[in-house]
């Protein structure tokens, strides 16, 4: 059986169960290369129109895909190729790079935190290479923000690119306290400010 047919069977089972991910924005994408994680932007599966997952706002006319070069290792610089495409003609684009927690991952001094360029819809995606240095294992995130000048004004978009370092699970944040009620139900207790 060819890989193509494997893909089809996978999607067919989705269709039979009317599973929305097939064709939705969170759909199955191409398989990731263990060396170079390639993350194309759209669905690679056949879907019916029924039960499709849909995302919220119409976002800025720009899209990203990325490749993490090599295997990220704690303390070692790792390059991420960010490919940027636009559907807006002659659109000046400014990218900004950021990490939420510099103790987990930081930019080397040589890494510019901003890039500017122009793109046309028919252009090849603009390659921007970003280098980060992971400081711990886990799933870390490079935040990429884009500013696009359009006829309708400046439009913004922000997304996160995951960088998996080692096999450690992601460190999840908590809000409130996970607790159990007298009836055995787990709830997240969040504090109220109380006044009289």
């Amino acid at each position: 059986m060819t890989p193509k047919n494997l893909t089809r069977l996978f999607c067919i089972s989705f269709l039979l169960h009317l599973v929305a991910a097939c064709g939705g924005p969170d759909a199955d994408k191409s398989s990731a290369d263990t060396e170079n994680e390639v993350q194309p932007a759209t669905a690679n599966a056949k879907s019916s129109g029924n039960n499709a997952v849909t995302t919220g706002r119409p976002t800025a006319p720009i899209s990203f895909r990325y490749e993490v070069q090599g295997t990220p290792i704690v303390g070692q610089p790792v390059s991420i190729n960010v490919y940027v495409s636009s559907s807006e003609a002659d659109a000046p684009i400014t990218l900004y790079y950021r990490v939420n927690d510099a103790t987990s991952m930081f930019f080397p001094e040589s890494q510019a935190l901003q890039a500017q360029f122009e793109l046309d819809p028919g252009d090849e995606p603009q390659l921007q290479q970003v280098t980060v240095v992971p400081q711990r294992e886990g799933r870390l995130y490079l935040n990429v923000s884009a500013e696009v000048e359009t006829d309708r004004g400046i439009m913004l978009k922000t997304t996160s690119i995951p960088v998996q370092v080692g096999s450690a699970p992601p460190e999840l944040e908590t809000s409130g306290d996970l607790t159990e009620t007298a009836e055995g139900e787990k709830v997240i207790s969040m504090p109220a400010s109380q006044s009289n």
Partner: protein
Amino acid sequence: MIRMSRPFRSIIFSAMLVSLAACSSGSGSGDGGGNRNIAPTASAGDDQNVIENAVIQLNGSGSDPDAADRLTYSWAQVSGTAVTINNADMAQADFVSPNVAANTPETLTFRLTVTDLAGSSGTDDVDIVVSEPALVVTISGILQYEFPTPASNCDGLNFDATTLRPIRGATVQLVEENGGAVLASIVSDNNGAYSFQTDGQGSVLIRVRAELKRTGNPSWDVEVRDNTSDTGVPLAERPLYVLDGPASSPGGADEVRNLLATHDWNGNGFTGARSAAPFSVLDAIYTGMQLILSADAQAIFPPMDAFWSVNNTQSEGVPRDVDIGELSGAFYDPNISSLFLRGKDGVDIDEFDHHVIVHEWSHYFDHRFSRSDSIGGTHRSGDRLDARVAFGEGFAYALAGMALNSTASCDSFWFNNTLRGGGFSLESQDTSPNPGWYNEESIVKVVYDLWDTNVDGTDSSSIGFGPIYDVMTGAQTTTEAFTSIFSFAEAIKAAGTGQNPFIDALLEGESITAAGVDRWGSTETNNAGSTDTLPVYTTIQTDGTPLNVCSNSEFDSVGPDNEGNKLNEHRYLRMTINTQQRYTFDIQADAATLALMPIPDDLADERDQSDPDMFYYRVGQIQNLCLDGPACNDPEGLSGDANVENFTSFNPLPVGEYVIDFNDFRFNDTETDPAYPTRTCFDITVTPAP
């Protein structure tokens, strides 16, 4: 014969009866003769728990088998603080209960003695427990959450202009601090008010569950949960958010406990638990439901969940894992009737973006109340979309605007180091980029302006929400065509609003042909500049007459990766079945298209040749499926054969109208060869199967 007078005869007769009676029974402590007396039985009544300083009835009674016996009663106090017994010689006596010390009940014991004429007696005791009266105190208050208003031009949130909004319709519980028992449970009102009565004993707290529950007509069941917590259990069982006030004992006085869920914004980011978030999400959904209830007061809302987490982020990573909060964006998943919303500090937060929340909730409305044939996928401002996607998304924005009575659809997120945002106006006076039936923003403006009472641009009137609701839950669910602005417009014009000129003006204002509009878009002239766009539906005969249909990806222009949900990537066909039987569908890439493909086909390259596919539907229901047995488990019409698709329907097709979604899968495929042409054409036939 001595004649006695009547009174004398009566006395004698009575004496004889008494004598006879006395002789007929020999038990008891009687006269020691041959006739024994039986002692009476006393009953002092049931034990009682009473309050102090109250008149307490002693409900005694006596019985005696010697029917002629006359019984006498005597109450006496056996123990406890001495009280005066009133009517102590009667079966029913009473006394005033004494004062007792706080939390120290006292037991008074009384004894009733019942005696008959022969002096035989019976006794019974009763315990009266006297306590202080039970305390009734009221704990009441207002439940609110902090809501930062959208900043000017939707550019982030204005925390300096934070308002307090009521937590409406939420489950409120009175909970014991020790042990956590729920003593009482109610639902907050539309002002966020609640009230409990309690005995004031023990330490209690007020708990507000992030849920909306109601049974009957109408009914609903909404819960806000954390998808990233306790991930070992199914999503529907992940922890529910609750808001807990501090525990204390109310003592002896009524008490006001106002609870506030705070956003915990410190000027640059969030600190603390961000308890306002789940309740803001809940309130947005509550607001959406109110719009539906305005048109259908008996609406039954099937259960749904909303998942929000501080870990939920906009992520490019795939496969995305909601257990760790990686989302493609805010979205609704109809397979589990759930919304997923972002909350990641520094990336994207949705909890205060009520337009975003109600937009996604509108997809729940589509799913549960209406019908949407949208194929989903990414959509950007100005995109020329598949008509089904455009209507699904556009209607969702409009419904959010109607529910929130707000014209600015705002979405806040981080841009670099700052909380910024974006949005657009729902009003028709603000021009849509690339207007038309394929543009979600055009759909927004048509639907929203049908509802709103503002006069602007082509918006000169209003039909209110009722006709819109009726169409979405009526004609839109039964249309043979795909759900689009065309099916909606035809139905809304047929709804008898008396405002068709107004409806036409709104459609024309967005470059949608209004005259003669029908569900098929038969009169549409706006082709978005592509020769492949019109007609919206092409009729295909079922007698083998070939039809040439072209699809293209010219509007799927963001990058090399096809997204597959743009205008012309899917072409719509109409097919009328007049005879119920099986039919054979045959699709072949035409000669011009084949000439564009590498020759010979590189069998190692899965994506260098065209891949025609076909879905066919009847009233919104896909018909490619066969569920009759293992021989037909796979949907038909979706093979991976290069340049061709040929299949015979699993089942005889019932007479009726069908629509076909025809597409070249290469335009949906993320890994299509970059050299693949942007336009492909196919010859299609439908013939009765032998």
